[in-house]
């Protein structure tokens, strides 16, 4: 694709970020979004062997819960498909089994969230399991989705075009996402999503900026936002290369 990208962060955290991409087509923006949701592989528990389960839940229910616990995903290339990391859990009641009780066989793959309750055990109940974690893509199961609530919006440019008439009622003008005001980027939440509060007594015009997208990305803790976006871009590149190779004569 011709042209250059320009990426600018509006908010930046480890697990949640908002950034602006300029110079991308809608198709490319959506491609990145889809890659973040479905094509970036993450680790998750995939197979569970129950040694003892006298809790109130069935084996299958517990296996699902274990699968949904996010695990830290090692750097790219450390693991390939079908590699297995074994985690074990052994808790006797009365106690609650938490995700932090999972003992991993590999320091690179550990529960990303420590306080997720797996099951509450009463007196005399016990849970002992061995679980295999695999690296897979979000396409196969939602537990392998690294990106949570990934989305984008057009960047909106706000321009003051004049004053309101003196005795005119001020109506609220609600906008969402991020606005651009004379080159300055502002999250609409900062002025309560209401342009009438930011520009009292003014008449404003709002228009979408072409080819500028504000992404909002959250991760489940498997990796940082930065890692997720880079891996998503890499996965698009890899598929594009594959296609190029496949159609060559």
């Amino acid at each position: 694709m011709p042209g250059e990208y320009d990426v600018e962060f509006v908010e930046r955290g480890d697990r949640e970020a908002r950034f602006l991409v300029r110079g991308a087509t809608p198709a490319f923006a959506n491609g990145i979004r889809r890659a973040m949701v479905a094509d970036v592989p993450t680790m998750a528990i995939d197979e569970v062997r129950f040694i003892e389960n006298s809790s109130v839940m069935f084996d299958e229910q517990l296996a699902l819960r274990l699968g949904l616990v996010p695990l830290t995903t090692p750097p790219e290339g450390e693991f390939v498909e079908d590699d297995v990391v074994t985690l074990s859990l052994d808790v006797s009641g009365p106690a609650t089994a938490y995700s932090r009780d999972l003992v991993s066989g590999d320091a690179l793959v550990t529960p990303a969230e420590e306080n997720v309750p797996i099951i509450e055990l009463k007196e005399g109940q016990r849970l002992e399991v061995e679980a295999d974690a695999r690296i897979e893509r979000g396409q196969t199961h939602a537990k392998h989705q690294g990106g949570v609530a990934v989305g984008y919006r057009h960047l909106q440019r706000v321009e003051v075009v004049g004053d309101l008439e003196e005795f005119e009622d001020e109506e609220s003008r609600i906008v969402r996402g991020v606005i651009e005001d004379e080159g300055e980027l502002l999250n609409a939440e900062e002025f309560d999503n209401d342009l009438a509060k930011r520009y009292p007594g003014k008449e404003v015009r709002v228009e979408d900026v072409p080819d500028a997208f504000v992404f909002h990305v959250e991760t489940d803790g498997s990796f940082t936002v930065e890692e997720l976006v880079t891996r998503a871009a890499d996965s698009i590149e890899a598929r594009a290369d594959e296609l190029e190779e496949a159609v060559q004569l």
Partner: protein
Amino acid sequence: MMVPVRCFTCGSVVGEHWEEFEERAKEGDEDPEAVLDELGVDRYCCRRMLVSHTDLVDVVSPYQ
């Protein structure tokens, strides 16, 4: 029975907040809205996961 690990709709991990939410808002007398805001559970899909949940382990456990 137990709190869902993740939000059904968006997939963010909500299970970890349950115990604090229960202690402060369900058993305590804090405003659930304020507690959820503080816990960082922002979206309404995730909020309903905690607000509408009831633990049933104590109800079922006598019938093992």
